[in-house]
């Protein structure tokens, strides 16, 4: 479903990582751990197609990557002048999937802020909206970079629920520094 073969990324002469290999099937959840700067976020960006690998290959779920991959990260920004509803409508029209605006907003507890501009959102509310966009098309693979960062306790529980649901639907890759989150994974990949 989702995998890497001999994957490596280099910035200038420095290799972030080399020769990564893994294959994830439905029900699998890969925890990517490592110190700051070890390349966790870069690995997720590679899998999402946002960065090109320096070597190796990536196998993605079948179908259009815009619907078969979901991605949420701390450094992924949303449009400050648009509302949460407008983001979900925009994403659905671009991906050609059902908008599911109300169910998604209820799921991430943003119903009351649905018509508020994102510029007025807190960091945690933005993280919830990014989670909603990531799962909107019911992706086969979900990539989450530090999913609990900036979320309150209820938000962390929501992220855990989303990960558990995703494992029933497909695979999940989670980059995290929080060892408590390792229990959400079926495999662990530690980057040096």
């Amino acid at each position, binding site marked *: 479903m989702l995998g890497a073969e001999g994957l490596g990324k280099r910035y200038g002469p420095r290799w972030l990582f080399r020769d990564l290999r893994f294959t994830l099937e439905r029900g699998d959840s890969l925890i990517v751990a490592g110190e700051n700067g070890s390349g966790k976020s870069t690995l997720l960006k590679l899998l*999402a*197609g*946002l960065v*090109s690998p320096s070597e190796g290959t990536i196998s993605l779920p079948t179908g259009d990557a*815009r619907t078969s*991959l979901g*991605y949420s990260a701390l*450094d*992924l*920004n*949303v*449009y*400050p*002048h*648009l509302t949460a509803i*407008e983001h979900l*409508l*925009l*994403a659905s*029209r*671009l*991906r*050609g999937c059902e908008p599911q605006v109300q169910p998604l907003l209820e799921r991430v507890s943003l119903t009351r802020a649905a018509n508020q*501009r994102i510029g007025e959102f807190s960091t945690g509310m933005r993280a919830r909206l990014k989670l909603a*966009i990531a799962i909107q098309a019911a992706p086969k693979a979900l990539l989450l970079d530090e999913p609990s960062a900036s979320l309150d306790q209820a938000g962390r529980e929501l992220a855990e629920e989303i990960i558990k649901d995703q494992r029933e639907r497909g695979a999940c890759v989670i980059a995290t520094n929080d060892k408590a989150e390792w229990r959400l994974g079926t495999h662990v990949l530690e980057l040096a």
Partner: protein
Amino acid sequence: MSSSWRKEISALFVKEVQSELRGRSGLLNSLLFSLVTVVAVSLATFGHSISATFAAGMIWVALLFASSVALPRCFTLEEEQGTGDLLRLLARPHAVFWGKALYNLLLIFLVALVLGGLFLALVEIRGDRPVIPWLFLLSLLGAAGALAGAVTLCGALVAQAANRATLAGTISLPLLLPVLFLGVNGTRAGLGDGVLETGLTASIGLLCYGVASLAIGPYLFAAVWKH
């Protein structure tokens, strides 16, 4: 064009318009720049008339700067505010280019109309013959098409570069020189100077230039969009 393409392009166009109406950065800056230019020319030439050729040159200088203030922003802003990755995850590059180019076309046409109208209203223009409104409008429409095509392409190509400001200037020079040449000829004829046929040919040439750059642009953009 399939309905999915139309949906994607219209979604991006609507997103650009919503952001512009709420952020008010591009259009307002361009309109203010146009107003200041026309008022300055009007004050400098108060009590005198200026030739249609000179007026056409002034209109094009103002139009060029007004568009360069706003148009490349639509791509560079995505990278500056960090939303480029969201767009890369959700949209196909051709749709992104056309959605933004459509928005730029609308924006620059509005600016060209306001700028042309202000020039005609506030500056006394002296030509070999009276103003030909349809040709003047055609040259402005051609200007909008050509500038939207050229500047969108330029903005798209440099958006992810570290030294994007320098690069934009370097790339835009060869792209905009033919536009300027055709544009001044078209507008001059519309304002009553020069040969009518030359003006008509130049205005149609501008439109063709716009169509060509909007047709080629997405393919160039797709090559740099994800890297």
